[in-house]
């Protein structure tokens, strides 16, 4: 288990390095001069020159690459060229909002999607199974931000049940929770269907396995067979796909944050890109990358906790 953990950790570091390289190259080749964009077309040549040298844009590309890596590794994500604040503090400021949104969405999707999927698998061909098949495909096909706009329209504008925008006054838990409902729903809607489909498919496959027949032959109750013996097996492919999907979920969160004007990493990156505020773009995207890679690491480890065949060592020793 420990060896597996360390080998995964090494891959994780390599992935982050690769992502940093890519990130750097992307900001280097993206069209639009940051100096001109930020300072405006009226800026004097001297000002532009000072700005360019402040940002280090006059240095050759390998020097800039080296500085970027050296800075990040020493914990310095750079300085926001507009406000002069450190990127790290900007990111930390909005990170909790994004994390709360993402996790409440995934939590809602799992606690509703998994039971729905199990029900659909064990009641194959039932009305709910058919309805679920239709609805989940419909929700998977519609992007989160479209759902977000509809939810806004229905619950905030027409029915006036929930607040429209923002994350709520700081410290007011109920206000923040009320403002979390619609964004969470818009992200989770896609995922409930997705998870339900995933669980249904894996469950159906597992329920046909010979070992399930063994459990039934020994008279174990159908509830025990389904929720203990089948579900643990069905979770394995589900978690694997879910891990990859979490990247998309972070992406969904970006758009939803923009629609609901919630503070968050998404809005931070979006704003920085339109201003060509490269240090902020690089720093914030890097945090997203690290977040994504860490989530995947956790997923991978839980995957091996569920499936003993992935673990390298353990009780019982080698096959005899």
């Amino acid at each position: 288990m420990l060896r597996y953990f360390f080998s995964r950790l090494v891959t994780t570091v390599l992935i982050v390095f690769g992502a940093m390289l890519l990130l750097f190259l992307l900001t280097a080749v993206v069209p639009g001069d940051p100096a001109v964009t930020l300072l405006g077309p009226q800026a004097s040549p001297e000002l532009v020159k000072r700005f360019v040298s402040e940002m280090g844009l006059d240095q050759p590309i390998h020097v800039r690459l080296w500085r970027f890596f050296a800075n990040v590794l020493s914990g310095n994500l750079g300085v926001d060229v507009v406000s002069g604040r450190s990127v790290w503090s900007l990111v930390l400021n909005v990170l909790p909002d994004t994390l709360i949104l993402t996790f409440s969405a995934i939590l809602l999707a799992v606690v509703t999607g998994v039971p729905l999927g199990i029900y659909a698998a064990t009641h194959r061909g039932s009305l709910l199974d058919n309805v679920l098949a239709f609805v989940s495909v419909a929700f998977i096909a519609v992007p989160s931000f479209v759902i977000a706009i509809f939810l806004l329209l229905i619950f905030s504008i027409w029915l006036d049940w929930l607040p429209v925008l923002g994350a709520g006054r700081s410290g007011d838990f109920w206000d923040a929770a009320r403002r979390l409902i619609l964004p969470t729903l818009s992200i989770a809607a896609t995922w409930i269907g997705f998870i339900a489909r995933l669980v249904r498919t894996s469950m159906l496959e597992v329920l046909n396995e010979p070992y399930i027949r063994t459990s039934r032959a020994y008279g174990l109750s159908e509830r025990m067979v389904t929720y203990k013996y089948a579900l643990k097996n069905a979770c394995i492919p589900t978690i694997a796909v879910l891990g990859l999907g979490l990247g998309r979920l972070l992406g969904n969160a970006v758009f939803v944050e923009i629609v609901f004007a919630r503070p968050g990493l998404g809005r931070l990156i979006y704003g920085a890109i339109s201003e060509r505020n490269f240090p902020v773009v690089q720093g914030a995207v890097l945090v997203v990358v690290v977040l994504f890679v860490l989530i995947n690491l956790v997923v991978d480890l839980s995957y091996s906790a569920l499936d003993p065949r992935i673990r390298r060592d353990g009780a019982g020793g080698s096959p005899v």
Partner: protein
Amino acid sequence: MVHPLVSIRDLKLEASTNRGVAHILRGISLEIGRGRILGIVGESGSGKSSLAQTMLSFLPANVSGVSGEIVFDGVDLLKLRPSEVQSYRGRRIAKIFQDPMTALNPVFTVATHLVDVIRRREPGLPRKEALRQAEAALTSVGIADARLRLEAYPHQLSGGMRQRVMIAMALLVRPDLLIADEPTTALDATVEAQIVDLLKSLRQELSGSIVFISHHLGLVAELCDDLCVMYGGTVVESGLVADVLVRPRHPYTRALLACEIEDDAEGRLVSIPGEVQDPVAPMTGCIFAPRCPHVVEACRVTVPALRPSDSGRAACIRFEEIA
């Protein structure tokens, strides 16, 4: 006379396929005596595994018709509701499966498998006590380091070891009827012999009856009391193992025995010419007629009934003549 534990009467099983209705079991009648070991032999496709599955009410999804009766200790299992059948499984009937590689759940330890079977009998038994029983069961099926093996996952065990775990599960049930569906087919020859020896030595502990399904007459001869030979979804011959193997009366049993023990004059393996009857085809005469060396016209027009012979019962109209 004591009633047999199980008596099966005219059991028919039909399944719909894209070629038409397949007659998987064409009217099986047999009895399983209390405390006896019945060997069921036959080629692949003879319906022996389908028979075993029907006894546990595990019917394939494409089954279109079941008729007849399976009377288990006075109760017709075919007339029970699913929940009632379930109350028999794992209490009075247990099964050992053909492929031990896939019959155990890969994400649970041996201990979990065994403890759940124990708790099925005795709900609320403390885990510690259940584990103690599980360990004892593993020891009694010849697994060394039982305590250590309890924590093993199925993939950490060899095929023979897994089959021993399956047998331990069956032992813990102490069933009235144990169905062993080709329990050694997936194993190496040496391991196969060990498992058969194990089953033999466990006869004392398994006080109930055993149905041992195999295509291997030699194993059946070694382990079983009674023998039932199946062909094309029918029983063609039955009787005491000692009698049937010495005086086989049905031509199919003879052919099967010849395949098992003799090489022909040139030392080639003997085989039965022809192919197993297509299950979709209707049965007009003796099911074995197309492959039978002793076939006469009468065989093709009348379905032979199982009738008493000097070694048991045989379904052949000519067994006196060809004996």
